[in-house]
């Protein structure tokens, strides 16, 4: 009985596969995050990373925490569901500064800026008395629900006898800002 002569080929194959396995092991260890698969087929800590992002859009409750009188002014009016942010800007910086100021009295809040009329820049705080903010919701547009208070601007201003129809503060000649009843 003769023995198999070419065993060295098998050893070579074995050594090669073992090397591949080892390299694979090292590469996988490097590439796969430690917490992969703990709660599902993903990096478990990604959930915490995403959940840790800051809330930037301020709910009205945040504003009312300091501006109490406004809360009372708006309570029960048609505009109760309109958010402060829609007219006054998203005030991201303002709220962050206010929170720091609550702990450190030396920090003072800068006054609200004049609104430049650009909705895209509404991340700052503005004091707005501008017909553009009113019309951003109320200008009559095809598609609005029947029960929504749509305004055909030209007609409405003529009917109401607005003194300066195109002035920024036209709407506020008759309507309040917070309590909007005429």
């Amino acid at each position, binding site marked *: *009985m*003769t*023995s*198999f*002569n*070419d065993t060295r*080929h*098998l050893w*070579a*194959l*074995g*050594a*090669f*596969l*073992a090397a*591949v*396995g080892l390299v*694979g*092991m090292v590469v*996988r*260890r490097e590439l*796969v*995050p430690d917490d*992969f*698969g703990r*709660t*599902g*087929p*993903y*990096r478990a800590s*990604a*959930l915490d*990373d*995403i*959940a*840790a*992002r*800051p*809330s*930037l*859009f301020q*709910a009205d409750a945040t504003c009312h925490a300091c501006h109490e009188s406004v809360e009372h002014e708006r309570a029960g009016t048609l505009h109760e*569901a309109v*958010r402060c942010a*829609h007219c006054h800007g*998203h005030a*991201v910086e303002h709220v962050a500064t206010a929170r720091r100021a609550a702990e450190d009295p030396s920090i003072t809040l800068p006054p609200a800026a004049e609104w430049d009329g650009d*909705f*895209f820049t*509404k991340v700052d705080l503005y004091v707005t008395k501008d017909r*553009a903010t009113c*019309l*951003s*919701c109320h*200008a009559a*547009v*095809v598609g*609005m*629900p029947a029960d*929504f208070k749509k305004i055909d601007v030209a007609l409405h201003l003529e009917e109401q006898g607005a003194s300066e129809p195109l002035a920024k503060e036209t709407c506020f000649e008759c309507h309040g800002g917070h309590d909007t009843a005429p």
Partner: protein
Amino acid sequence: MSLFELPILPMSATSAAGGCASGGCATGGCASGGCSTARPDQASETSRREFLKTATTLTLGAMSLTLLPGAMAGDESSSAAAPPGGGHPDAKKPMYGFLIDTTKCIGAGKCLTACRVENGVPDGQARTWVERYVHFKDGRVEVDLVPEIGYAASGEPQPEAEDVLRAYFVPKLCNQCVDAPCNQVCPVHASIKSPEGIELVDTDRCIGCGYCVQACPYGIRYMNHETNVADKCNWCYHRVMRNEQPACVEACPTGARVFGRIDDPDSEISKRLATLPTSVLKQHLGTIPLTRYVGLTDEVT
């Protein structure tokens, strides 16, 4: 290493086996005599068996080696993995739902700015948008996008009201499909179906291949051109985890967007879902969206 010789081994072994499989082939090509290095049948049988034995041992050994790292890195993972297609692996986790009431949307676009501020969405891209469907009396249906600044400020020409049969706004956002196609195609597990059923992007892990953008049948996913990774509406997961409302819901002045826990029968959304006739987008695709709509017509997809 003489790797390239290796294939010869099994081949010659096979040919030897093949040649004699039918039995009775005493010495194959050597039967006619004259080949002095005759390989006796017996020896060939033995070496073949030995070869197979050794080869099997080595192969199994190598295979077990490659299995090892898997056992080291993710053994808990395989047992605790979510059921196929995401869903809610843990029944005790809260279940959320989103309801869009198209009969209440006024197309003011406040939700769009709120989302951009909240999530830092670059200009020209959007996680959520609002479409307007205008059904004309002559049978045409036109669709356009609500400008973020609102129609009034944009100055876009408007259809004549007397030509219009019906018109309404349809806000679009992630449908959070239970069986999400975007989740399934991700090659690096950067698409996450959270235990709450919310589809998220692991931006650290995403390689920006864009498969998921192609896979979403609703066009919700996009490649964020600032970060160059996939981005999508995630129902403001970070806000929801703090028991806050998503930014677009918080911003909506008319209650057209309703978000809440659908496992709580007293929540606003549960009550409305229980009474209103709702539908989902592209139901025929079987993705099982969690975002439900009121007042859709067949034109909306």
